[in-house]
């Protein structure tokens, strides 16, 4: 298959996915029972009259039929207008824009230590028994303890063990978020690396007398990269949609916390926008990964399409 056709099909697939995610958003939000206008009023005051409810529904634009509302919403999206938050009255884009830097920092910061650590850990544990023992126990810990328990426990331990724990706390979210991912990555990387190391061309590379460094970066890494790229892209997509639990435990104002706050107060425009963002990011990341896979291993893709 030639490159041009590959680009067409992957672009088309991305577009279809973006469209279905948008449609799914509309369906989900229309299905939510209850009146957000009434709920907002009840949160604010005890006395709720019919007239006030109608007024606030008018303000939120809930009086028009579902179809018109959805159409208007899609029209708004095309010019990047996601409506106004029911809770604060601010434009949703501004709300998300103010939360996104925290989530981005968290996502990239976590992957920045997780990816090298899992690669190094997997490589080390193939080579040395002691390293294997350490890495497998750490990854068992990350695999077994749920992140909310881990977050609370680590906070507790740090506050007991360290006197000046204020200095350490900014690093803890990265640790708690990264540990389960490291565990997962470690297992994947370990299986792929053992497979690569057992192959004939690596044995030949050793026979040529190449250094470990050269073998890893020139022979093993290009071979395992395609299978790891997909895994990395998936978790990056998940992380960019907000680390809900970690943000709640550590009180970080990220996207995940915005989403939970929006769910609590039935802030439909914010809910829709966050779900949309995460779906879109995922769709784009998947197609970028596909392109990278194609680039890094053309033979693999030729057999697939």
């Amino acid at each position, binding site marked *: 298959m030639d490159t041009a056709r590959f680009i067409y099909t992957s672009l088309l697939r991305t577009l279809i*996915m973006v469209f279905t995610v948008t449609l*799914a958003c509309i369906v989900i939000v229309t299905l*939510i029972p209850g009146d957000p206008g009434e709920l907002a009023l009840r949160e604010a005051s005890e006395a709720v009259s019919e007239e006030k409810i109608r007024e606030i529904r008018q303000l939120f634009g809930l009086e028009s039929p579902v179809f018109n509302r959805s159409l208007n919403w899609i029209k708004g999206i095309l010019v990047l207008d996601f409506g106004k938050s029911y809770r604060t009255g601010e434009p949703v884009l501004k709300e998300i824009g103010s939360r996104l830097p925290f989530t981005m920092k968290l996502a990239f910061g976590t992957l920045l230590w997780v990816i090298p650590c899992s690669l190094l850990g997997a490589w080390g544990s193939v080579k040395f028994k002691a390293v294997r023992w350490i890495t497998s126990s750490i990854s068992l810990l990350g695999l077994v*303890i749920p992140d909310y328990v881990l977050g*609370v426990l680590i906070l507790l331990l740090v506050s007991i063990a360290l006197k000046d724990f204020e200095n350490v706390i900014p690093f803890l979210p990265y640790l708690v978020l990264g540990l389960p991912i490291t565990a997962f990555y470690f297992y994947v990387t370990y299986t792929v690396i053992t497979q690569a190391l057992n192959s004939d061309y690596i044995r030949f590379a050793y026979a040529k007398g190449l250094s470990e460094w050269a073998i890893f970066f020139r022979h093993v890494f290009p071979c395992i990269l395609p299978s790891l790229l997909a*895994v990395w892209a998936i978790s990056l997509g998940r992380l960019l949609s*907000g680390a809900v639990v970690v943000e709640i435990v550590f009180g970080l104002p990220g996207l995940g916390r915005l989403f939970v706050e929006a*769910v609590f107060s039935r802030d439909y425009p914010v809910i829709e926008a966050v*779900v949309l963002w995460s779906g879109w990011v995922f769709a784009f990341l998947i197609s970028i990964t596909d392109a990278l896979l194609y680039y890094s291993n053309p033979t693999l893709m030729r057999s697939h399409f």
Partner: protein
Amino acid sequence: MEYKLRSLKAILSNVQSACKQSIGLLLIFLIFLVLLPSLTAIVSDPYKIDLKQRLLPPSGEFLLGTDSLGRCLFSRTIIGGRNTVISGLSATILGAIIGTVIALASLKAPSLVKEPLMVIIDSCLALPDLLLILVLTLILGNSIFGVVISIALSNWPWWARFIRNLLIVAYAQDYVVASRATGISGFRLFKSYILPQILPPLGSAFFVRSARSIVLFGGIGFLGLGVQPPIPEWGSMIRDAMPLIPVAPWIMVGPSVGFTITVMLFQWAAASMRDLANYRNYTFI
């Protein structure tokens, strides 16, 4: 990815030997979890509020101490454990059933149905499960039933994708093609050539996804959007314990240890299934 040709009998005897260790242990744990709450001699009333006895440390009367309302934490942990684990398990089973039906439909249906189905599965997979579950609980309500259905509904696209891939690869194996050439087809082909190959990865995936569903069920409770009080549930117990940790750290112990043991047993069962298949090429996401 390649399957080894084995008979159903060989796989089942391997499953039996695995059962004796990890899967058996898991079963014993689950049975205990279900039966313990009915032993009234061990478990006192988990709903009984006694403000005179609030925040007591562990003692002979209250094995894990009491919480801020003076309720016995031991009985709450056990009944909460039953709620959490059984809900997670049933959500996985439900999701797997829906996923299997959709997977079969996406393989056998006419292409007019097939293609849209795959697009729907892919776009459902694009949405993060926690976000999807939270929105679905808004629709279905946050009773235990509602949360279980939401987790199942967020689970099925993964199962559909997984089972579809499994079947495609299994039917494409050379020995399956060869046996078809000899005239074996239908149920007999499935029973003696397909099922033995897909059983271990299927079992392993089931245990991993169950552990994940249990953790998700707890996670929604932890966020305060899951099962509402006074029904005990591990996630919401951890949520209640969080502000009280400096005063009464023992509130955390029951649900944390419970989560860890449960997930460990499930992961162990999954690992033994994976080992028995010698099936290391597949990653479970």
